[in-house]
């Protein structure tokens, strides 16, 4: 079990998570209005806060993704990825439980159809969540440049 938390597995998790989060952020950064609508469809935020979230969240995804790959502040980035995935899983589950069929808004927010939420979305996010924990509880600090390993 300890081997999972070392060397290539951790590096692989960092690269996959980093790539996924960078890719997920780009379309949302370009189209905050569409992303705000996608968030609004989940009906979890009060007072029209979806617009503020639509502005900040994609940058958080991008920064965390870049940090994971670049080996900068990896602990903080892993925690952010874990928190984001827990929030995503919660938002998707409550939408599924209420029987509303909506666009995921996970990656592309501009294409119509084809990216609806479902159990596969939750499974995918649980996968990312596990990878986040592997990175957070890693036993070595290969290819990490800031902060220097303790």
């Amino acid at each position, binding site marked *: 079990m300890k081997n999972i938390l070392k060397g290539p597995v951790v590096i692989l998790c960092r690269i996959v998570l980093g790539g996924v989060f960078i890719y997920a952020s780009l379309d949302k950064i370009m189209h905050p209005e569409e992303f705000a609508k996608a968030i609004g469809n989940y009906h979890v935020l009060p007072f*029209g806060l979806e617009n*503020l979230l639509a502005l900040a969240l994609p*940058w958080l995804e991008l920064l965390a993704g870049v940090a994971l790959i670049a080996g900068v*502040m990896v602990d*903080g980035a892993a925690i*952010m990825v874990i928190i984001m995935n827990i929030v995503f899983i919660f938002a998707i589950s409550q939408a599924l439980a209420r*029987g509303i*069929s909506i666009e995921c808004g996970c990656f592309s927010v501009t294409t119509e159809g084809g990216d609806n939420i479902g159990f596969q979305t939750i499974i995918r996010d649980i996968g990312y969540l596990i990878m986040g924990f592997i990175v957070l509880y890693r036993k070595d600090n290969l290819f990490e440049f800031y902060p220097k390993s303790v």
Partner: protein
Amino acid sequence: MELTRPLYQVAIFLALSCLIGFGSNLARNNSIPWLAQELVLAESIDTNSNEPVLTAISLDQAKSFFDDGILFLDARDEGYYEAGHIKGAMRNLFLFELIFKIEEEQSKSDPLVVYCGDPGCGDSEDLAYDLQAEGFTKLYVFKGGWLEWSEASYPSETGL
């Protein structure tokens, strides 16, 4: 595991993303409002138009819809519905069951009024957006809801 440093990093990530996200919204040409707009109250209503609508309506407009025999939908939970609702209003169900029931009575392009408890509740608006996403095109949210309707002593009934 030491926690102080990771949390410090989390704070940096949060601060940076807010700063860049909000800053870029100020800088871009097609910036979005800081808060999403609420539904505005309709001034005039033309139910014969073919344009898709999702708008809020007042008590008077709701009453005139009621008099025209337009279908009302109660977005509250069963207990509230049972205790009292607008006469003839349809009860809230699991979304797809509800859509099936509405479609037994009318098409997706026919007008539909959705209401909940009082002007502060969001269930009617949520349900209206859900129905819009499912293809309903004429949705009116009666914001005053059961509170204004019952205070005006307009036709109502109890039970399921």
